[in-house]
């Protein structure tokens, strides 16, 4: 993909096409608005500084998600000397889903956000990429640099935990 940062429109187009997906992934992964903002900024700063990054990428979306994930992991590692920041990200209560006028749907989304927050980040990342990015396990494994079976098992564990936690409200809404 030819990206010419001499023309800012290229970067704008890239932002318009992929920022929402990156935002959703980072928000779900970090559970933190300001961290999501910083990481999204870092992704586009790196792209602008080194446009050749995208050249070998066959699928820019997958490449950008991978870059975002790696940056988020780096940030977790840098902060690992402090209090377990990774856990703090996951347990923070925040708005993850869009508002909805339907009160049942709103309560389900609230419960889902809390259940997602309770998942370990690696499971949350796989669940997000499978459900909201509609990626195959092969793509997820490549993106997160994990074995295929690990991606599949993390997804299954994550879904089982979500289902166990959301079963009461889910059954009620059925």
């Amino acid at each position, binding site marked *: 993909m030819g990206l010419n*940062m001499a023309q*800012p429109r290229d*970067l*704008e187009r890239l*932002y318009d096409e992929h*920022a*929402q997906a990156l*935002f*959703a992934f980072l*928000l*779900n992964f970090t559970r933190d608005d300001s961290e999501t*903002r910083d990481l*999204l*900024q870092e992704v*586009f*700063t790196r*792209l*602008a*500084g*080194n*446009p050749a990054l995208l050249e070998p990428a066959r699928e820019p979306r997958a490449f950008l998600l991978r870059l975002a994930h790696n940056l988020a992991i780096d940030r977790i590692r840098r902060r690992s000397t402090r209090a377990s920041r990774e856990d703090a990200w996951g347990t923070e209560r925040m*708005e*993850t*889903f*869009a*508002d*909805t006028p339907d009160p049942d749907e709103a309560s*389900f*989304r609230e419960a*889902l956000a809390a259940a997602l927050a309770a998942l370990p980040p690696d499971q949350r990342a796989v669940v997000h990429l499978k*459900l*909201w990015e*509609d990626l*195959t*396990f*092969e793509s997820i494994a490549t993106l997160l640099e994990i074995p*295929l*079976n690990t*991606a*599949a*098992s993390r997804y*299954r564990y994550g*879904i089982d935990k*979500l*289902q166990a936690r*959301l079963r009461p409200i*889910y059954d009620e809404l059925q």
Partner: protein
Amino acid sequence: MNPSSKAEPESAFESRLRRQVIRPVPVQWREAILQEAAAAAHREGETPSNQHVVRRSVNLLRWFSLPRLGWLGLGATWGLILALHIAGQPEPLSDLAGRPPAASEAWAAWTQNQRELARLLDTEPAFAPPPASRPPRQQGSLPRFVPTA
């Protein structure tokens, strides 16, 4: 579970999760992020690029990764170093037969000369004779230590 089976049916629960919409990226972020990214690109353009240094290093590493060329060159270099080392070694011990006499031999010759000179002059030699070797100590020659009290 077969992870590559994309045809595995999605449960109603998973379908319901998939329908939940994640909130949109805040609109005001767009301009700020793009401005900062553009500024970073500008700064990057002002700093001297070190890509050629990286490229040279990679090429050098690539050369060493060639087994025939790289390792043959390294082997030839080591062979040359070994040959130079052997050529510069000191003489073997067998070549030291014609070396000058040792100090003890010189001393013996000098004392012999002095004795001969003294005999000719009928005087005592001008050097002290070497100390006679101490006779072996007889057992019980030392006083025994008897503790008192």
